[in-house]
């Protein structure tokens, strides 16, 4: 059995603690009956078309494809992938 490197163990602990804190936070919210604080009639700014990060979906799909072909990172982008085009 290989001993897990220290930095991985630390990362694992940090994730455990982070998730626990998150769950406790939201459990607390539920018990305190926190109500939604931004009312529907207060959301006109967020509903403005210029606030849509995916306003140009077809362009975003191309951007994700370009980066995924040239970089090792993948995931959490909502698009990209597909074939190679990388040589």
């Amino acid at each position: 059995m290989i001993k897990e490197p220290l930095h991985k163990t630390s990362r694992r602990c940090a994730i455990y603690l982070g998730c626990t804190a998150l769950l406790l936070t939201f459990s607390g919210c539920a018990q305190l009956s926190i109500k939604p604080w931004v009312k529907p009639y207060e959301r006109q700014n967020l509903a403005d078309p210029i606030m849509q990060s995916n306003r140009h979906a077809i362009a975003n799909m191309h951007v994700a494809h370009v980066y995924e072909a040239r970089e090792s990172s993948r995931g959490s982008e909502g698009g990209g992938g597909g074939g190679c085009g990388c040589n």
Partner: protein
Amino acid sequence: MAVTNLCSLVNIWFFNVITSFTAVAVLVTLVNSPTVNAAVLTSDQADVLYHSYEGGGMKIDGPAILLRKKASESLAVSAYYYVDTISSASVDVLSTASPYTEERQELQLGLEYLHDKTIMAVNIRQSDEDDYLANSFNVNVSHDTFGDLTNLNLGLAVSDNEIKRNGDELFLETSRQYRVSAGISQILTRNLSINVDVEGVADEGYLNNPYRTVRYLDANIPAGFGYQAEIYPNTRNSFSTKFSASYYLPYRAALFFHYRYFSDSWEIHANDVEFNYRHPIAKVVELEFKVRYYQQTQANFYNDLFPYKDAQNYLARDKELSDFDDLTIGIGVTYLIPAKYNVSDWRSELSLQWDHITFNYNNFKDATADVAVGDEPLYEFSTDVIRAFFSVYF
């Protein structure tokens, strides 16, 4: 030893994914509250795009079409068609082969169903080129909750790939990819919303590029070095976490930010950060500015120049697996076509986006340079990426 190590990494990856899923699932349970229905399907839209990528000895361009149509208030269909026409004389190609041209076509078909506050979406996709065929299927579920201040989403995707090698009729390999994603979107104030997304990706099978080679020192060869085929592990597991924020500025402009951290079982660690600023002018023009910085470390089996042939059990000299960074500077303009020029009162727009990307490699050298082996300059290149598209909302 290697198998045990891999099992350990897979365990960590599974732990990350399962923890994320558990967190999201518990949040759904805890913060669910009855409120007005706000979930809606995206409006009907058609986009026609021309894209171009030019730099590093490569020219890639072609058209793309995206069509979305609601069949009813609760059902929408979508289709996406994309073509890459590739003409390549990149540094990888020039060092061991001849320039080539090829074409890649991609087709996606999607279906979205809205029920109360939940949107369920399925999507099938095929990407086809001479030497690579990818078929994938994905399912996504998103749900509005907590007075519609919160949106939760979960996704699952599977992709099967067939890899061939042009000029070698007997070569046929396969690979499979699984993707699991989860995300939470939260409205914090009347001007600010944030997102946290995580995604785990697991690959198994043939993960090499069948054309690429590694260099190794060999005094028996006149050039002083030789080439041998790359050998990659047959599995790769990765995990990414992305934090993003959108902020509405008081003079009607928008600011977007994201940071993503990525790591995988090949010991690659990467970070990228991006700022976007969108500014409307006189109700007919929108300007967009983008700055993005990306940095990654190298895979643990990467080397620009190996000391001898078969120096390791895994070998790579793929510059995408090396230590490098890149910087993107982008600008975009959208012209909102005045109503009097629109057909059937359909709103339409013309957009042009230009990105300039500079890549700097920290341990990938230009093997085409005419100097002694090992003394070549570090490789760097820049590329221009252009997108011109027309959108109609009907």
